[in-house]
């Protein structure tokens, strides 16, 4: 399968702070030795480099549909990233301390796009409820959301508890106005996606103006 590897490499090494980074030992294969690699977690991508200064990853583990668990291994502080399905690969990794291992297990088990999407949909629901009802909505934990202590990404096509199947709820009815500023109707009840688009257009226009004004020597 073709993959936009160059873009992946740029994403791996971009300036933004990583979600987690550090040295881990990675087991080469079932009977292979461990190799010390520099790991960088960004979003649902776990990149690994020869060392911390490398410009390009040796590889990446795409973290959708996996579970993260502790394992019995000769190596101390070992854990595994396990994928479902026949002939699926299990990645055995080992940290250099108990704290590092716990940090990685926590970070990796909540790294999937699926998990993040569940949380976002739940927050959208809560925000709509707060705007409509006036008071804080009782927090409802959707069934598919993993528990605190042993978070693991669930490979689930089960529809989450949120009412709309896609991100972006129907605009809720406006709450009574509390601000004195000029009415800006649609923006109040807009979803983040709409606000992002609107502000983005404004920024693009301003940037265009700035560029043109700086074009004259």
């Amino acid at each position, binding site marked *: *399968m*073709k*993959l*936009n*590897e*160059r*873009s*992946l*490499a*740029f*994403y791996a090494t*971009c300036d*933004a*702070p990583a*979600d987690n980074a550090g040295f881990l030992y990675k087991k080469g294969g079932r009977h292979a030795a461990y190799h010390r690699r520099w790991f960088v977690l960004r*979003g*649902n*991508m776990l990149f690994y480099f020869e060392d911390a200064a490398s410009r*390009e*990853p*040796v*590889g*990446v*583990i*795409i973290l*959708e*549909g*996996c579970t993260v668990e502790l394992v019995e291994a000769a190596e101390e502080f070992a854990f595994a990233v396990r*994928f479902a*399905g026949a*002939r*699926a*690969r299990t990645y055995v990794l080992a940290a250099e301390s108990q704290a590092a291992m716990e940090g990685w297990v926590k970070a990796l088990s*909540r790294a*999937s*796009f699926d998990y*993040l*999407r569940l*949380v*976002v949909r*739940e*927050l959208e629901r*809560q*925000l709509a409820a*707060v705007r409509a009802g006036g*008071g*804080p909505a009782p*927090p409802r*934990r959707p069934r598919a*959301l993993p528990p*605190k202590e042993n*978070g693991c990404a669930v490979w689930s*096509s089960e529809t989450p508890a949120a009412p709309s199947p*896609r*991100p972006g709820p129907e605009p809720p009815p406006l709450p009574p106005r509390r601000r004195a500023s000029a009415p800006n109707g649609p923006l109040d009840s807009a979803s*983040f*996606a709409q*606000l*992002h*688009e609107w502000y983005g257009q404004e920024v693009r226009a301003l940037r265009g103006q700035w560029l043109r004004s700086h074009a004259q020597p």
Partner: protein
Amino acid sequence: MRYNEKELQALSRQPAEMAAELGMRGPKKGSVVKRRLVKLVVNFLFYFRTDEAEPVGALLLEHCRVTQEEPSGFSISFLEDPERKYHFECCSEEQCQEWMAALRRASYEFMRRSLIFYRNEIQKMTGKDPLEQFGISEEARFQLSGLKA
């Protein structure tokens, strides 16, 4: 770069946010338009030959820009090389708008910013942090201060 191809193939079989047969043209000079089944799953855009089960390829949709090219066509390019474009032809302007909106929302980074936005809004309105119930309120990746302008 090594990657877990089997898992990526399995991902391509998951329920899609959007799926349609579109015209697709690669970024190389002189490439022609081909009919492809294009499928959006999480932050990956898979494209299949219309009669095959395994994708020809996948695009990770992080740090990408979606641009309208014609009334019913758009392109995807990436931050490191904005002129290198993957072109897509839709059957209508409406379908084109639908795809562009979906693709712009499809990145992990966008989802993260949405989460921070909603968290902040809920906190302002209720005085409570909605992430506490999930046990993730301390995570650095969800802090307002982590947002770049």
